[in-house]
């Protein structure tokens, strides 16, 4: 494998895919989705090669590539992965084909543009996950905005334009704060290289002072906190998630939000562990607030998609709590929970979308008794709901358990108290998720779903999962059980990277 620039190859495939879609699909875009699926399949294969080739015991960053770009500023095209980015890369390469396949009936116009924008988004997300240079990271981080804006704004629901605009402007405010911080840091140290900066900051006399570090931490964290989003910076989220077509919502929540949490871990904590330690209580407070607030608001929703959107806020609160707690278990749990959130929330959005395709509504009250109508769907929904609620033997349990046990032992003051509140959040999550399941799946069947006199389609007017839909959900179900029962391969790969972070964190507290 040596000598093959796997990471650049992985970035090149979606870029080539865009050209392929534009050139290969006719004006009606009939072949667009197929070409895009093909491209994302190749990307997935390359990411598997990274998974196989990654040595948990090896160097901190692997598959590194570095080429000078703007030497005046100490900027280079520097990419590489560690265990944390590896997991998120796989999450991305799995979810892009899933989202493309699931876009089936919710997106039926301008397929050529749709498919190419999804690939641009994939390119940007993967780029952000592998960047080891702040400037390169920023470029990919910002590049995510444009395709997302268009995907929501063109293919979204009724209020799509306002939602897309709000999303763009909110995230942009955070980004420019980060840009200023990045420039201040990069110009003072003469490099934008992540590894170089960590070295420069760690050297004796290389410190930038606690006050400056805190300013920079806040500037970086603002960008990521909006992207995640952390309450109270979340107000762009419900509209954007609800207005976007399901496949785009899946990409935004399962994958794009992870770039926010990843950035927080990699850059905010990685570069300024001292400031992160000092601000841990504040971030933990906001994270816990998000857990409880998201759960309470989700419990009130009558709209299925909105419910999942708020549950997403709640679950990302757990991730942030884990990351900021700073103990190895908690950060490890935060990393695993990033993947879990992607899988479970993505699956919930996908399944909600499948219901919507059948019933043309998001209203929870409209459903009921579907377990009898769609038994396979019901079985899968049980699994996904359990996973999202964090029940044992599902992935959600692994993540939340690690986060909460880790947070109890957090060195920063009061973080353990937030863990207690977070534990209450787990119960709240179970409450609204199981109630949703009950309202949708159990009770009397809505007469609207009963076909008159048992027509050609059987006794019900809507059918169970189709083969294509099962194919879409199958990999997610496998992941839910795999991470729930045997998380070792995932934990092993991310452990060295997590320990590198927590070591600097613990070092800063002394």
């Amino acid at each position, binding site marked *: 494998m040596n000598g093959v620039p796997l990471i650049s190859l992985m970035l090149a495939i979606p870029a080539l895919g865009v050209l392929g879609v534009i050139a290969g699909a006719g004006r009606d875009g009939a072949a667009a989705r197929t070409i895009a699926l093909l491209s994302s399949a190749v990307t997935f294969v390359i990411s598997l090669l990274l998974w196989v080739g990654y040595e948990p015991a090896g160097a901190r960053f692997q598959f590194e590539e570095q080429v000078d*770009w*703007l030497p*005046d*500023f100490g900027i280079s095209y520097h990419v590489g992965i560690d265990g944390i980015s590896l997991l998120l890369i796989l999450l991305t390469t799995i979810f892009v084909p899933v989202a493309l396949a699931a876009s089936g009936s919710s997106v039926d116009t301008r397929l050529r*543009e749709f498919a190419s924008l999804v690939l641009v988004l994939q390119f940007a997300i993967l780029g952000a996950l592998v960047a080891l240079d702040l*400037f390169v990271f*920023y*470029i990919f981080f*910002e*590049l995510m*905005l*444009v395709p997302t*804006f*268009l995907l929501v*704004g*063109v293919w979204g629901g009724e209020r*799509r*334009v306002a939602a*897309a*605009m709000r999303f*763009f*402007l909110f995230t*942009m*405010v955070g980004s*420019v*704060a980060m*840009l*200023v911080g990045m*420039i*201040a840091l*990069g*110009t003072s140290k003469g490099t934008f290289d992540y590894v170089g900066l960590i070295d420069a900051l760690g050297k004796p006399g290389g410190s930038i002072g606690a006050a400056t570090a805190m300013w920079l931490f806040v500037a970086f964290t603002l960008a990521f906190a909006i992207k995640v989003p952390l309450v109270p910076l979340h107000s762009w989220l419900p509209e954007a998630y609800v207005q976007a077509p399901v496949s785009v919502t899946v990409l935004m929540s399962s994958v794009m939000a992870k770039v926010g949490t990843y950035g927080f871990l990699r850059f905010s904590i990685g570069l300024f562990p001292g400031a992160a330690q000092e601000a841990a209580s504040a971030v933990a407070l906001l994270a816990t607030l998000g857990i409880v607030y998201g759960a309470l608001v989700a419990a009130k929703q009558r709209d299925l998609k909105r419910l999942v959107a708020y549950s997403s806020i709640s679950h990302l609160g757990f991730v942030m709590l884990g990351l900021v707690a700073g103990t190895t278990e908690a950060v490890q749990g935060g990393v695993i929970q990033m993947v879990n959130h992607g899988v479970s929330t993505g699956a919930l959005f996908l399944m909600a979308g499948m219901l919507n395709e059948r019933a043309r509504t998001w209203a929870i009250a409209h459903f009921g008794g579907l377990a009898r109508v769609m038994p396979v769907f019901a079985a899968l929904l049980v699994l996904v709901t359990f996973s999202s609620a964090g029940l044992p033997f599902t992935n959600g349990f692994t993540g939340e358990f690690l986060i909460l046990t880790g947070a109890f032992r957090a060195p920063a003051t009061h973080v353990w108290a937030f863990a207690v509140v977070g534990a209450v959040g787990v119960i709240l999550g179970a409450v609204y998720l199981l109630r949703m399941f009950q309202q949708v799946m159990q009770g009397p069947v809505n007469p609207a779903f009963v076909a008159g006199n048992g027509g050609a389609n059987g006794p019900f007017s809507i059918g169970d999962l189709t083969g294509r839909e099962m194919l879409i959900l199958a990999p997610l179900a496998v992941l839910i059980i795999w991470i729930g029962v045997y998380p070792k391969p995932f934990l092993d790969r991310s452990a060295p990277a997590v320990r590198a972070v927590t070591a600097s964190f613990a070092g800063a507290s002394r």
Partner: protein
Amino acid sequence: MTFALPSLDWWAIAPMLVLTLTGCATLVADLLRAEDANREPLAWMTVAGIAISAGVAIASWGEAPRLAFSDMVYSDPFTQFFTVLFVSVTAVTVLFSFEQLGREDFHPAEFYTLIAFSTVGMVLMAAAADLVMVFLGVELLSICLYILTGFSRRRMESEESAIKYLLLGAFASAFLLYGVALVYGSTGSTNLSCVGLAIGASGGLAGACDGAVAAGTASKAVLLAGVGLLIVGLGFKAALVPFHSWAPDVYEGAPTSITAYMSVGAKAAAFAALLRVFLVAFPTISPDWSVVLAIVATLTMVTGNAVALLQKNIKRMLGYSSIAHAGYILVAIVSASHVGATSLLVYAVAYAVMNMGAFAVVMALGQAGNERTLITDYAGLSRRQPLLAALMAAFMLSLAGIPPTFGFVGKFYVFSAAVESGFAWLALIGLLSSVASVYYYLRVVHQMYMVAPVGEAAEHVPGRWLSLVAVVACGAVFLLGLFPGGVVAVANASTMFVK
């Protein structure tokens, strides 16, 4: 008494000479041609003159920097850099004119002559080594522009904007001239380097400073008053707030090709002059003026972006946005450093590329008798003209400073220089105000991609030169956004005179 004939360094001013001769030649050629003859030869003559002028400037690249014509002009990489930039903008404007001349019943000969002469004015502003030369350049440029602004004789707004521009411009010139007089009164010289020496600057190219006062004896109060008036005069040309009130009306009223020309060329020329004057003549008192300019930059960025939010006409919107961009460029001068000067040049190129591109699309959509410049005229463009819409979207994103475009690189350089010089707060204000700009740029994208087309707009084929300009500019926006190294290296070499 012997009288030594001065040896004239014609080569140093050759680009300007070529342009002047080109302007004269088009006038004469027009007299010789038949009444209804094709007007294209005149345009090609101008383009040829421009090409020669650019060629001369490029050929002199790498020569040792020197003063020429009794220390009146510089022939140095900075001059050559801006010469190439200005003539490129002019060339694009001439290509634009193919469309506009046919549409609006222009007199071609005068149009091309005035364009050539005004370019001479711009080059002179960048080359000036003496405040008197700055003034001459400004006047030559301005007088040509007053006429060009009113060139759409049939359109009332065009005439109105020309008168507004003339009246306000005359005021600004008076301020500029009075500023020159006060600086002279304080330091005893109008030569930039001599002024610099008189107030304690050292090094650099200097001519014979016979009349200048000894270093340290200049009256500071008079000097600062002069500097303030120079800011007003040049600030008017660059459309800095609060000297900007003419700009939106003029940009809206002028023929679109001239709007593009003014908003890019004239603005860049004003900044070239500002940079040269402030960093050659007044570097030693930079603490005094950099705060003033920082406030002006803040006002300019915030006002430009805030008011652009409200615009319904795309020319007006681009007018206000160009005010905001002037604010960003001014940040580069505030930095008062070599890096700052380099970033100014980089931003000037970035701005020229993306703005000329955007105007090419605006012109491509216009039709005879209907310029179609309302933002709502762009509704559904992605369905009617997918290529034009994609190009416009690229220019909007670049103007908004979204990576990986050249516009982002420009902003990055400018604000990096500001942070390095201790103006992090200015960088933060600039970038936050640019978030507001994202909204109005995206509104165009929104109209093009998310709104259904209104009515049955007739399929209309944009002129091939407009399409060519737009496609090339779009390529440059992305290519230079990803690989800005070359431009940065050239800009860096061009600003060696700034320490």
